[in-house]
Structure formats: structure tokens, C-alpha cells
């Protein structure tokens, strides 16, 4: 740029004013609006043309459909898809939840809190016990998590939920499948309690459970783990649904009551609403010091989260 300027000065002689006079603000806004209007006009015209030509609709680019390919997601057009699908079926036949999914036992769930829970967390636990069938909640007092696990195994519980809190706000959830693992730790956020009207609609019926959008190998394990907390045979008379939906590694928990009016489904939210985020999945029972992790994010988030289009569930 500099040499050009020098040439200009020598040819043009007197120096031009460096800045042109500033346009008034109103004029600028008007111009902007005009541009916008033109742009919208062009867009509208293009849309009309596209519709008229009969081309297939374009798919918008979202983070979900441009996510980085994961090796543990099975696609039907893979080379060794059949072998892998077979292996996956064999794996699920022999893992820790195989007994549950072949109807061999009915889950019995124990819900506890941190050592001295405050009101809000107790309330949260109470609502969870109402949703999860065949569940009991206790205060574990000064018993450690490991002691609680041993006691729960001796009493024949099949799952254990421990809710942690911070400043009167539930913020963590440990889910242990008994008697021999695995253990998962979720970060719990955005807990919204059901209001009075919603609490009135709670019934004792066993809800239906839906886990959606878990695609990877890890995701499938987590979905199986979350599903195994609830009873297998739902009572359809109650018309309750518990949904655990995975989106961008966040698991959304929703509780609805449904109704069919003129063959159209209508949903009514019952609550609570909360979001789970997997922090680690551990092999075996809870053992933060010596335990082996199947997948861990704590301490190495920056190494794992290399891109915002990379998801693990």
C-alpha cells in the first residue's frame, strides 16, 4: 500500500482530506434498512424460484449433522458391519445389565444424598422416589459411599443413586449399578421442580421409559444403565412417560403425562426437569482412587474436547 500512496501524492499534488464527512446517524440506519429489505426481497424471489423448479428441499447445516465421525458409531454401509453388530449383540448378552434386559429381576433402587442434605435436595430426592418405581430414600448420615454400597448390596438393592448439592442446589448424581458396577458420575444442572398443579397429577403408576439419541458405544452403555433403574413392565393405565433424551452429550430428563384426543397425542409436563452431563464411567463399584475408568473427562477435558463438533454419547 505504502508505495502506491507515495505515487498518488506526487501526482495529485495537494493532499485530500483524510476522512470524508461523517454521514448523519439517521441516514446510515435508513441505508441499512434499505439493504435489508432488498436482501429479503432477493431471498423471497429465490425461494419462489426454488419451489417452482421442484428441486428437493435443502437440509440446513447444524452441529448435529456435521458432527465428527466416531469410530464406535455403527453404520450399515461399513465394511465389517455384520461382524461388529454381531459382536455388539454378544457384548450386550453378557454385560452387567443382561439380567435386567432378559427380565430376570425387578430393580430395587436406593436413593441417598450427601452427608447432611438441605431442604431442596431432600425435596428433589422425594420427587425422584415418586417417579422411580420400587425405590426407597434414606439419609446415609456419616456413612461413606463405599459403606453405603456394601450395605445396599447386602439388602438386595440393584441400583444406588447419590445426589450431591452445592449451596442448596443439586449439582451431582452418582449412579451405581449393584452388585458389580459400573459406576457413573453425572453433573446435574438446571433442576426445575414441578409446581403445585403438576404435583397433584403424580400417581403411583410405573412410568414408561424412553431413552433416545444415544448412538456411540459409550452412549449405548449409559442408556442401558439409565434404563435399568426403572421397572421393565410399565403400567400403561397411568399414561406417564419418562424421557431421557441425549443432545450434544447433554441428557435431558423429562416427565410427561400423555393423552390421545381425536387420535392426536397431547403432552402435559409433570416435572421435574433436569439435565445430566456424564463426567466419568467407571468399571466396578465406586472407587475414585484405584478404580479403572471406561471413559473419563475430569482432569483432561481440554485433551478430549478438541472440537465443538465432537460428541461422545
Amino acid at each position, binding site marked *: 500500500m505504502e508505495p502506491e500512496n507515495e505515487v498518488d501524492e506526487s501526482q495529485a499534488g495537494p493532499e485530500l482530506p483524510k476522512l470524508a464527512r461523517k454521514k448523519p446517524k439517521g441516514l446510515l440506519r435508513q441505508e441499512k434498512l434499505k439493504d435489508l429489505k432488498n436482501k429479503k426481497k432477493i431471498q423471497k424471489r429465490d425461494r419462489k424460484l426454488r419451489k417452482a423448479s421442484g428441486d428437493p428441499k435443502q437440509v440446513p447445516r447444524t452441529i448435529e449433522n456435521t458432527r465428527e465421525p466416531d*469410530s*464406535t458409531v455403527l453404520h450399515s454401509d461399513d465394511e465389517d458391519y455384520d*461382524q*461388529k453388530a454381531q*459382536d*455388539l449383540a*454378544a*457384548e450386550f*448378552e*453378557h*454385560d452387567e445389565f443382561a439380567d435386567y434386559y432378559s427380565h430376570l429381576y425387578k430393580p430395587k433402587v436406593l436413593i441417598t444424598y450427601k452427608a447432611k442434605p438441605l431442604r431442596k435436595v431432600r425435596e428433589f430426592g422425594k420427587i425422584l422416589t415418586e417417579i422411580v418405581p420400587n425405590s426407597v430414600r434414606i439419609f446415609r448420615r456419616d456413612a461413606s459411599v463405599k459403606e453405603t454400597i456394601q450395605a445396599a448390596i447386602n439388602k438386595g438393592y440393584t441400583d444406588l443413586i447419590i445426589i450431591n448439592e452445592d449451596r442448596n442446589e443439586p449439582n451431582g448424581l452418582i449412579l451405581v449399578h449393584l452388585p458389580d458396577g459400573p459406576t457413573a458420575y453425572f453433573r446435574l444442572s438446571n433442576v426445575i421442580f414441578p409446581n403445585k398443579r403438576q404435583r397433584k397429577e403424580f400417581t403411583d403408576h410405573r412410568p414408561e421409559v424412553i431413552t433416545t439419541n444415544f448412538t456411540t*458405544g*459409550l452412549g449405548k452403555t449409559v442408556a442401558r444403565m439409565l434404563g435399568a433403574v426403572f421397572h421393565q413392565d410399565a403400567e400403561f393405565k397411568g399414561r406417564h412417560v419418562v424421557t431421557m433424551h441425549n443432545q450434544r452429550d447433554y441428557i435431558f430428563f423429562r416427565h410427561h403425562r400423555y393423552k390421545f384426543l381425536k387420535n392426536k397425542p397431547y403432552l402435559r409436563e409433570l416435572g421435574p426437569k433436569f439435565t445430566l452431563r456424564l463426567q466419568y464411567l467407571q*468399571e466396578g463399584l465406586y472407587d475414585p*482412587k*484405584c*478404580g*479403572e*475408568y*471406561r*471413559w*473419563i473427562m475430569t*482432569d*483432561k477435558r481440554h*485433551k*478430549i474436547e478438541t472440537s465443538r463438533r465432537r460428541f461422545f454419547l
Partner: protein
Amino acid sequence: MDWTYDAIIGFSNGMLKGVELKNNKFKYINLLDASLTLNNLSVYDESKIIISSKRKMLLFDLKNKKMSKKYIIRESGNIIGVFKKNNVLIAGVNNGMVVVKPIKQSKIVSEKLSAGSHLSCIREVLTLDKFATGGNENPLKIWDLETGKVEFTAKSPKPDMLQLKLPCYVSDIQFFNNNKAVVSHRHGVVDLHDPLSSQRRPVASCKAENTGFVSLRTMPDYSDYEVIVGTTKGNIFHYDFRGKFTLPVKTFRGSTGSVKSVSCINYLDQMHVMSISLDCHVRLHNFSSGKLTMQDYIVGKPVALLIKP
């Protein structure tokens, strides 16, 4: 020689797969379908391997892909490791017993040795008629096979500067060619013991923070001081016991789950580190550069890795 595979991977549901390394790809051959819970694998001879499952030891023939023999031990607890030495099968059980079973004469009652509670690891010394055991709060013991007596017992770790007791949880043991023992601990310590010296505490040790060590392997005919260990959080460290530094020489990254087993393998005339981890992947790292050469998803949960002897 029936080992046509470069390695064999054993899965927790009893599946066995042979692995061949070809043209930058892993090629799998199904050896056994899922049927039993697999705990451990070890080499029997040139064409057979030993599979241990709960309280059973099974001989698996690689040639015709069938089980050939079965041994059952009468102990309460699962087998944590088996190996064959001089026509004897030696199995460690996690209730603390070591069972010595003769292979041919089935009528002779098997010998039993008590190796302390919470046994978690049993390994043979390749060059001598000895074996080593260790476990939770059960430091390294080296036994003589003939007499059945303890030859060397390591002392539990030194208390820290506040004189508090430090935990001891042996996860794996290996031996160098000069018969020095390396012990990895679940609390993130690797110790080098010298059984010949009078010192029962470790001669040298390396530490890592926030992780534990699960698997351990000495370098094959490389050096008497170098070792690679796999951690519970998915790193593989390369340690050297020479010198003062206790930090790892090199780190092999890439895994997000606990490294169940590591081994060294020769591929394309270069030393490579092969590992299986609980996030269901096989990985191959270049040893000299430390870079990840290959990785593949193997669907099942791997437990054991056997490299062609």
C-alpha cells in the same frame, strides 16, 4: 508353530480374537464365541493357550479352535492369573491361595500355598524356577517353586513425612533379565526391587499423580531399566529407572479408558507399543516417535492381550 496371529485378544464375555497387522490395518479372526466370563489368558505351549474363567482353567487349541482340557480348582474365589512351568500349572486365586496343579497325573492332590489376603497378581520369573505374588495391602513376595517357600518379601512403602501409612496395592509385576522385579501399584507408583540385595524397600521408584497403574511391561531385550505402564485414566507412560528424575520419559496418548494391557510388538521393523483399553479400542503407538499409528474399535470389552512369543 500354530501362532499365525500377531496377537490374541480375550474379551470379558469369553470371545477370543486373533489379530494380524497388515497394511496399516488390524485384521481379526474369530477364534471362540462368547460363552463364559473370561478372567485371564496365558501361553501354554506353541499351539495352546490357557484360558481362566472364574474357577476353571481351560486349554484352548489354536489349531483346531477347540477346548482340549479342563481343570477345576476347589477354592472360593476367582482365578487372577495362571501360568505353566515345568509340567505344573500354577494359579492364583483372589482369596489369597496359590494352587499348584500337576498337569499329567490328575490323581495327585494339588498343592496349596497361602500368599496373604486380597491377591491381585501372580507372575512367573522367566529365567528361574520362581514366581511372584502381590495384592491389596500385600506387598511383593517372590516364591521358590521347588520348596514352596518365600524367598523375598518387599517391605510395605515408607510412611510419608507426617509418618502416615501409605497404601499398597500391587497391580502388576514383571521381571528384568537380571532378575530385578518391577512392581506397579494402583496408587500411581512403580517400584524397582532387587531380590539379591539385602534392601527390602525399593531400589528406585517413579510416581505419577492422580492416576493409578494397571498394566506393566518390561522392554524386550532392550534394557534392564526401562518399563512401560498403562494407567487407569488412559495414558501409557514410559519410565526409566536410571537417573534422578521420577517423571516419565515419554507418554503415549490417545486412550480415554483404562489401559488393560500393554505389550511391545515389532511391526514394519520398528518397535511399537500395542495396548487394549476399556474404551473398546486396540491401539498401536510408534515407540520411538510416540505417535499413534493405528487404532480400531473392537466392540467388546477387552481383558487380556497375548503377543506371539
